[in-house]
């Protein structure tokens, strides 16, 4: 017995160092990672050198890997708040010089950063360690059959349970919903981040607005839930990830309507872990995955929008871009008209205040 055990332990220790040879990319899994596989890895010069690993967000694992010195994830797909924190803490490597030198410029020679600024984004420290991926949004959607008469089309309607009776599906954390409440309270969508940052009492306003629908809410915590809630009639409207609604409409023959007003755009970044075992290969893949072409390509598989402004024309000029010869732009969050009524979530503000607001939100839910 003990002999067997020893041999077994010994063998696995010996074999352990051979594990990493391909670039490991940690991402969210599911359909999202599938779209990354197709858009980035399959179009890469050596597709087999890229392996996707799943994680469920947050920097816990990354910090554990970096602090203990056993890094296996070369690249991590993160939300902007985590990009900022990871970069500040040195969990992700500062590669701002390499990005300036190697990231693909836009068609008019603009740098990647300028290309992103053209899309309404502002520099934050995450840009030093990471390359952009896609925009996704928290969008409200509904089944048109649930509203035979007038149909809701604004955040004010979402928060108006007298005009549109029925339950609402919202998520169990604060990001996105705070901004929507501000819009429903009459703040111009584009101005919401500034108001939240500058105006004292803005948060109280948001929570007061949330109070008005408190008794008409079903909370969800996994992305497919809101669709099941709406489909089964348990709620009449829900907030969801727009990609999930897009997939239901495009591939599952559903006919859900979006309310683009007050959608909250959030971003995704691909960051290089400090001490990544395959640093050079990982960097090369980063340059590939951040080209406007690759980002536009991803829209073929999931309705998330390129973060580089120059990715959009590629899609628009080549419609039908979607699966099975359908136009994809009607399902994309970042067309100019839609951006005009949207909020681009401010990652710096959230990384400053997120913990506190989430506690407050939880207290609000629980009471």
């Amino acid at each position, binding site marked *: 017995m003990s002999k067997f055990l020893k041999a077994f332990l010994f063998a696995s220790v010996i074999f352990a160092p051979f594990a990493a040879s391909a670039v490991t990319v940690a991402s969210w*899994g599911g359909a999202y990672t599938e779209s990354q596989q197709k858009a980035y890895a399959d179009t890469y010069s050596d597709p087999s050198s890229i392996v996707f690993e799943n994680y469920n967000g947050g920097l816990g694992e990354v910090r554990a890997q970096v602090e203990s010195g056993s890094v296996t994830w070369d690249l991590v797909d993160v939300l902007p708040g985590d990009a900022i924190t990871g970069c500040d803490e040195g969990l992700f490597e500062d590669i701002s010089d390499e990005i300036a030198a190697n990231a693909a410029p836009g068609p008019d020679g603009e740098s990647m950063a300028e290309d992103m600024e053209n899309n309404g984004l502002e520099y934050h420290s995450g840009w030093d360690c990471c390359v952009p991926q896609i925009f996704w949004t928290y969008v409200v959607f509904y089944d048109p059959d649930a509203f035979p008469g007038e149909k809701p089309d604004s955040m004010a309607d979402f928060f108006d349970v007298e005009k549109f009776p029925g339950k609402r599906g919202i998520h169990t954390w604060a990001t996105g919903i705070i901004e929507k409440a501000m819009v429903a309270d009459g703040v111009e969508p584009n101005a919401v981040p500034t108001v939240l940052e500058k105006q004292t009492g803005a948060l109280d306003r948001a929570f007061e607005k949330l109070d008005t629908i408190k008794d008409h809410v079903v909370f969800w915590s996994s992305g497919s839930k809101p669709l099941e809630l709406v489909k089964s009639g348990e709620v009449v409207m829900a907030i969801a990830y727009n990609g999930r609604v897009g997939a239901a409409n495009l591939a599952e023959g559903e006919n859900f309507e979006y309310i683009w007003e007050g959608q909250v755009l959030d971003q995704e970044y691909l960051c290089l872990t400090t001490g990544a075992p395959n640093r050079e290969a990982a960097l090369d893949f980063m340059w590939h995955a951040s080209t406007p072409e690759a980002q536009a390509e991803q829209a073929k598989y999931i309705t998330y929008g390129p973060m580089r402004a120059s990715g959009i024309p590629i899609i628009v000029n080549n419609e039908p871009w979607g699966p099975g010869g359908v136009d994809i732009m009607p399902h994309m969050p970042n067309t100019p008209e839609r951006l005009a009524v949207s909020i681009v979530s401010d990652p710096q503000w959230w990384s400053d205040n997120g913990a506190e607001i989430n506690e407050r939100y939880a207290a609000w839910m629980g009471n």
Partner: protein
Amino acid sequence: MALPTYATPIQRTYYYAYLFFCAVVFFFLVAPLIAIVPISFSVSPFMVFTEGMLAWPPDPEAWSLRWYRNMIGDCSAEVVSSTVPCSTKWMKGTVNSFYIGIIATFIATVLGTMAALGLSRPHMPYKALIMSILISPMIVPLIITAAGMFFFYARINLVYTFTGVILAHVALATPFVVITVTATLVGFDMNMVKAAQSLGAKPMRTFFKVIMPLILPGIISGALFAFITSFDEVVIVMFMASIDQLTIPKQMWAGIRQEISPVILCMATCLVILSIVLLTTVELLRRRAERLRGIKAR
């Protein structure tokens, strides 16, 4: 334990109420599993009974083997869904899960039984302390244990190896064995050990011939707990396993932020059928063995 013939009507009522209550509990235990079987054959990625499924006569359009084919890695066009990625990972996960689970169970059962035997001795020093340390992996929230273990295992180069995952699962599963075996040992009469030893049996022989047969129900339920702990464990696997050690839970939790994959229902259905077959076979074999030995079942 049928009712004796002399039972009073009140006793009868109690008895049938008791049987009814047990039946309800059994139903409560398995009802959700029965509910998922039809849904695993649905064509829709939503986990609800669709209208087509409830229609009579049955609507063939609403039913399919789509998710089963996805599970075994058949990614042909009619199977592929834009929301549920298709891959061979489920099969790989199944193999790994059984591999890790069986080895971890074996080690945990041996260690746990030994620990329980030692701890149930009346004169064992520092009993309470040892016990608290042993069961602490159960009490400290798993995610903290996982992060702590990660740092520890990283130092000895065991993260992202099968050995690391198995050892971590052993640490988690052992307390279950300890608790169930100690519970059984309470009703155990230590005089039997003395008797065996006074008759000349060596400690090993005493254990296998006297102690083990008597506490076997405890050991088996401990081993079951251990196996299930490992088989269904996701937090540690998320921290300590790379894609090479992909297990079923790890695959199930992939992409959970966006979608609970309908393939998990297929996996569950398959495991349910497998375990019915296994458990029934074991029971039939046991009866056969009993018949052959000429012992009548109790």
